[in-house]
């Protein structure tokens, strides 16, 4: 596994208890948008914190761009679940704080101009001098996004960034995050509870079983076209197939998943077939990691899915 980001065998234990999660392996390519879905308590947030450098794994390591991570870094921007803005600073102050942290030597005019660019990008032009308390929840999260983008990180790490927002605001923000990430080729690792959000945003959806001893059960390659739009993506012929597969996983298989015959280093990739798949011809659309080879485990899939395992 040699992706841009490579999670290699990380585990988290507390004392002598069973590990919260164990032996996680995951590889991400540059520019990829990866969502992790799993029930509360499976250790998603811990994985994210480890990736952010705020937490350390009990064993294993994470490699980003060829270097093992040691603590937090400006290369990995974090968007927290709560907006976590500094309430005594204005919108500009919050973004500028991040910019100054990245570029210590910059003059204040340079910092302001740079910060302004990212405030404009998230659509907050005109609100620069407001304090977080004067902003709505969605606007606060926009500032958080602008702050994360402004340091131009190699990867953005998001912990359920939209879960505290109302449905309409959430939709708008998802659109913008999608637009920004697609435009800039931003690599994103995101945790969510929302299946639709994952299908709309992610290139790959990683399904995590329940803890303790949680593992990555499978990686669903999103079969929807990259240029999907909010107004139509739920009408795509493969949409319900993917959705049902993920919901089935969350409802039953996340509990009953057996680790026998599961190779954590080669988490099986799942791809929906083409709308009318010719029999016995595995589809190749949207495949990136699969090119190294594939094996089939046909029977296990509940819906009309095909499991393909990396070797």
């Amino acid at each position, binding site marked *: 596994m040699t992706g841009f980001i490579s999670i290699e065998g990380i585990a988290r234990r507390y004392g002598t208890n069973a590990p919260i999660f164990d032996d996680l392996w995951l590889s991400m390519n540059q520019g990829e948008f990866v969502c992790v879905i799993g029930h509360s308590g499976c250790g998603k947030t811990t994985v994210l914190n480890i990736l*952010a450098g705020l937490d350390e794994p009990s064993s294993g390591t994470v490699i980003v761009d060829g270097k093992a991570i040691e603590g*937090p*870094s400006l290369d990995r921007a974090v968007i927290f679940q709560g907006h*976590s803005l500094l309430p005594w600073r204005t919108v500009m102050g919050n973004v500028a*704080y991040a910019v100054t942290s990245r570029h210590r030597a910059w003059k204040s005019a340079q910092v302001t101009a740079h910060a302004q660019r990212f405030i404009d990008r998230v659509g907050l032009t005109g609100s620069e001098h407001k304090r*977080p*308390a004067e902003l709505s929840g969605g606007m606060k999260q926009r500032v958080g996004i602008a702050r994360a983008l402004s*340091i131009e990180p190699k990867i953005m790490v998001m912990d359920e960034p939209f879960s505290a927002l109302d449905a309409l605001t959430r939709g708008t923000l998802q659109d913008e995050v999608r637009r920004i990430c697609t435009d800039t080729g931003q690599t994103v690792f995101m945790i969510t509870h929302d299946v639709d959000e994952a299908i709309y945003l992610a290139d790959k959806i990683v399904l995590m079983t329940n803890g303790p001893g949680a593992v990555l059960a499978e990686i669903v390659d999103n079969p929807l076209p990259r240029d999907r739009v909010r107004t139509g993506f739920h009408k795509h012929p493969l949409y319900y197939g993917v959705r049902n597969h993920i919901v089935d996983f969350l409802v039953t298989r996340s509990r009953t998943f057996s680790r026998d015959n599961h190779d954590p280093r080669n988490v099986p990739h799942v791809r929906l077939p083409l709308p009318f798949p010719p029999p016995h011809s595995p589809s190749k659309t949207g495949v990136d990691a699969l090119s190294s080879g594939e094996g089939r485990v046909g029977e296990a899939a509940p819906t009309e899915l095909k499991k393909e395992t990396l070797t």
Partner: protein
Amino acid sequence: MIPSLNLRAAIVSIALFVAFILAWHLATRGTATVQQMSPEYAKLMGLSATQGKSAMPGPLDVGAKLWEHLRNPFYDNGPNDKGIGIQIAYSVGRVMIGYGLAVLVAVPIGFLIGMSPLMNRALDPYIQILKPISPLAWMPLALYTIKDSGLSAIFVIFICSLWPTMINTSFGVSQVRKEWLNVAKTLEVGTFRRAFTIILPAAAPTIMTGVRVSGGIAWLVIVAAEMLVGGTGIGYFVWNEWNNLSITNVIVAIAAIGAVGMVLDLILARLTKLVTFPE
């Protein structure tokens, strides 16, 4: 139309004041029987014996006295006769020095205590023991070691106004939200910059609350301290007038102490508001 809450509150306040003054006036009207005595003897007696006036001054006496003080607050007729303005200036000066030093010492120490859970626990018993000690209990020790009554008064103010600021600072610093610290961590902000750009502003409202409590205590302590050390100050003025049996002046001084204390607290409240952020 119902007038605004502020207006109604003001009306009630004024009514209460008028009622209080009226009750006070009626209570000190003086109804004692006038005794017959020789004019020679009457000269030695007070007005209460000769004219049946109440020994307790009424509001009109106090008002007249207050006006007298306000008209000329800064006169200086020697050590035992100075204007009330001069006395208050002495007291405020002492408070500023002792309390200012206390804040300068307590905030950095409180900051360090708050940053370190070890020091927090290690120093806690000392703070808890030193905090409830009455200012007057320190006085003999201060006089003996410092050997200067003026400095002793300042020391007593210092030692008494130290604790609320220190405790609040360490509490505020230790309670800074983890998410804000995480922001600093992910932005690779160094320890020094983090202390000044995250922890200090985040803890500032709590610190200022402690500073405000300390200010109140300093002003409470000064009166007691000056009563003991004597010489100058509003506390000394109260004691001196008590020795003169001028209850009128004592009441004027009490009113002045209250007014100055209120002004000090208002200033500190303003400062607190400056560093408070809405969430």
